[in-house]
């Protein structure tokens, strides 16, 4: 681990600029982008890097996120490595093409800055935009910090190009996107070592003449979903492998989930994104106070790493799932997903689903500590619980 640490190139970067650096280092060929708050700094940094000659992709700026993704799909099928970034309304405008991109088995990497979807209008950290796209066939990763965002972009290309599925990485608006932190920007040679050039399995090649997208008969359409399912099933191992390999090169390993101080934990807090940082602080403090509390960070949300979650929560007496999103009529999406993952395993964890931080409201370390106290002995409610 120290090998990489010795070669650190620390720069003070916002989360979005870290994403742009990650994209630059991954050397995509084509980058269609459209501005939207709070994603815009990614776009601007990339065009700035391009102007400086450091980012050599074909950058195109269509009139909408919809066309952005359409261009991404075309470019990917023409055999190129493709990167884009968006947020909230932009992601939702892409919805139709999110399905299209995965059905077409593209290897697009897209960065989404999680922001409240309108209406009402808001520009606040909230993961409903991407979580509501969970059935579109995209691999979804959630990032906690600017460093993780940079690292995840590079890993995402490796994953996407291995399984031929598009990958969406998310980080929270402002809490991560605009938070400035020291970020280790790896050497290009290191990234090149990790990420070989994209070799598409098939592409639109006049010398071959194969075409994509003609309507399929029912049986073949059905088959396409089975093949997609098989690809999804392979994702988790690829996330493990990429995170491990990246860790070997940089000293920063990643996985589908992260268990932080979960040893013999009586309460495990399950969450995603920037909330993990706050929970980490709360866990440290409670552990200092002698409380056996841990963090279960879900980094890979799609496909959900069910086995890892089951293992991580096997003997945990109590779990608090903190959702910075609200699925109307249901509650927190992560809560539903984790419960469903454990169903039928004989797991006896008392699991509380708490809507904490919806719409970007601040959830402090103190508040998290109090929530542990409030809920650790309660009987879980079947309803969504709003916490202040």
């Amino acid at each position, binding site marked *: 681990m120290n090998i990489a640490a010795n070669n650190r190139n620390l720069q003070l970067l916002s989360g979005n600029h870290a994403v742009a650096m990650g994209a630059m280092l991954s050397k995509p060929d084509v980058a269609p982008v459209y501005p939207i708050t709070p994603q815009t700094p990614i776009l601007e940094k990339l065009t700035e890097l391009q102007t400086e000659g450091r980012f050599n992709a074909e950058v195109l700026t269509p009139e909408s996120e919809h066309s952005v993704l359409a261009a991404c799909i075309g470019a990917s099928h023409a055999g190129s490595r493709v990167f884009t970034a968006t947020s909230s309304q932009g992601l939702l405008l892409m919805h139709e093409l999110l399905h299209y991109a995965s059905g077409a*088995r593209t290897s697009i990497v897209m960065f989404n800055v999680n922001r409240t979807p309108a209406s009402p209008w808001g520009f606040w950290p909230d993961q409903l935009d991407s979580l509501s796209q969970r059935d579109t066939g995209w691999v979804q990763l959630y990032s906690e910090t600017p460093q993780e965002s940079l690292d995840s972009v590079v890993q995402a290309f490796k994953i996407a190009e291995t*399984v031929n599925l598009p990958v969406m990485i998310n980080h929270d608006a402002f809490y991560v996107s605009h938070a400035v932190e020291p970020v280790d920007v790896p050497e290009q040679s290191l990234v090149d070592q990790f990420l070989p050039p994209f070799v598409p*399995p*098939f592409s639109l090649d006049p010398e071959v003449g194969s075409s994509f997208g003609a309507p399929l008969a029912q049986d073949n359409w059905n088959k396409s979903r089975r*093949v997609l399912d*098989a690809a999804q099933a392979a994702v988790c191992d690829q996330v493990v492998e990429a995170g491990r390999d990246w860790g070997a090169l940089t000293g920063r390993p990643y996985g589908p989930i992260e268990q932080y101080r979960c040893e013999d934990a009586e309460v495990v807090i399950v969450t995603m994104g920037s909330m993990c940082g706050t929970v980490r602080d709360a866990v440290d403090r409670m552990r200092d106070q002698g409380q056996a509390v841990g963090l279960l960070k879900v980094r890979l949300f799609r496909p959900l790493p069910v086995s890892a979650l089951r293992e991580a929560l096997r003997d945990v007496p109590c779990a608090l799932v903190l959702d910075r999103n609200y699925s109307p009529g249901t509650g927190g999406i992560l809560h539903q997903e984790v419960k469903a993952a454990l169903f039928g395993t004989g797991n006896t964890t008392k699991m509380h689903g708490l809507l904490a931080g919806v719409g970007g409201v601040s959830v402090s370390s103190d508040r998290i500590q109090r929530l542990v106290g409030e809920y650790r002995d309660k009987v879980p409610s079947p309803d969504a619980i709003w916490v202040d």
Partner: protein
Amino acid sequence: MSREPSFLWSNSTSEGRLTGTWRTASPDYRNLPSPCLGACPVNGRIATWIGQVTKGDYHGAWTTLVDNNPFPSIAGRICHHPCETACNRVEHDEAVSICALERYVGDQALEENWQYPKPETMHDQSVAIVGGGPAGLSAAYQLARRGFRVSIYESQAQLGGLLRYGIPSYRLDKSILDAEIARIVNLGVTVHLNTSIADKGGLEALRAEHDAVFLATGATKSKVLPGLDYSQPWVRDGAKFLAQTNAGEACDLGRHLVVIGGGSAGIDVARTARRLGRDVTVLALEPDDLLPAQRTEVVEAREEGIRFVCGAMMQKVDAGADGLTINCVEVAFTPGAARGQFTIAPVDGSAFTLAADAIIPSIGQDADLKKYGDLLDSAGPVIAHDENWQTSSPGIFAGGDLTSMDRFVTEAIGMGKEAAMAIARFVDPEQPAFVKPSDPAVPFKVINTAYHSADGRESPAHVAVEQRLQSFGEVQQRFTKAAAEIEAKRCFSCGTCIYCDNCYFYCPDMAITKLDQGYEVKLDYCKGCGLCVAECPTGAINMAEDLGR
């Protein structure tokens, strides 16, 4: 690991899907007859040879022409061209100038001295042809080129018949006639001039000498106008007048001449007399628009200062010291069912007179049915014959004016051809029969006129009137090369493929294959839409019912 999206891709062509099963009809390349072909007395493949002209293949065009008619230069000058009347182009703008084009090609052949190839095989059978006019020469040509031995017996001193003695040289220059006849004789035809087969015995002897005889002595007896005393010095039969003047004899008639008869012969007489410095009036039974002569002849005659008195008849002639007073009356003229048939009724109170020095009746010719006694049956005004042109006397065939009231040169040429083929088959049953085109002609409505602009026809130049009257030189001139090329391109080529590739390029299913010469339908893929037929500029393709594969 699943890196297998390949099955989502389309890797094979659609050619395995046989869309021909959708079809209920398919295109049929039949090259149906053009209306001109059916109208042409010799059944000339007009669309074909004009197509050859458009490609600059004049020798090919001439070869196609002379397949049916050894006289393209002559026909191109004097044919009554029913082809132009039938021409589909009439409904678009104006008929193609087929006749003038034919002359262009014919004259090209004479200029280049193109000759007929010698027959590939020779036969021992011999055929005697009595009469060296258009029908006899046509038959001689068709038999000689098939390798039969042919002897022509001509009563006159030169071959040509009516062409030589009846048609003035301002319509047909004698050098043209001589050259086209010489080309036939060069095929190896034996010619006996000044040899008249005058009676039954002569004909029987000839029949015995040859394997078959073809009689084509024409209609040599002038019709006689009732009430006119032909013995008067101021009456001259039209045919005699023409024969004399064509032979170069001086005209001994006075200054003011009245020609009776509005047919071609009458106009020929009138225009000949005009060239001899006479004042000429044509008196015709028919009203102007029904004059039997060709319209161009009437127009040119009028240009030359000939006066027409139409729809009237002579009743009586008073001869006085100052000349003749011809008493006339106007008539109501009603055409009959067949050519040459009509009824007339004098119009009361319409009497008028014409002054003249002489009268030239020119009202037509009859066949001499008595010449061979009872050897040949007659049928009305002509010699009877069966569908093979054979008379009641086996081995004796007849054609031309002797057998038909269709008194046109090209009709005679056509009869000569058909009779020759029948004779060939008579003397050698292995010879192919003549087959008259039976498919209906391509109608105008199947011609896609989008491919044909409507600019009107090219017309050959005419010599100015003043010059015309000073000589017997030809009035109509040959097309210029440029005009011939333009005019040839006007041909719709009705029913005849011009290899334009429209059918090939307009097929949305790539179901037409181009062959070296022509096209083939890929029935596996033809959906039967009919675009190829609709976009064929010549109507050479038909949709035929075809319930798929």
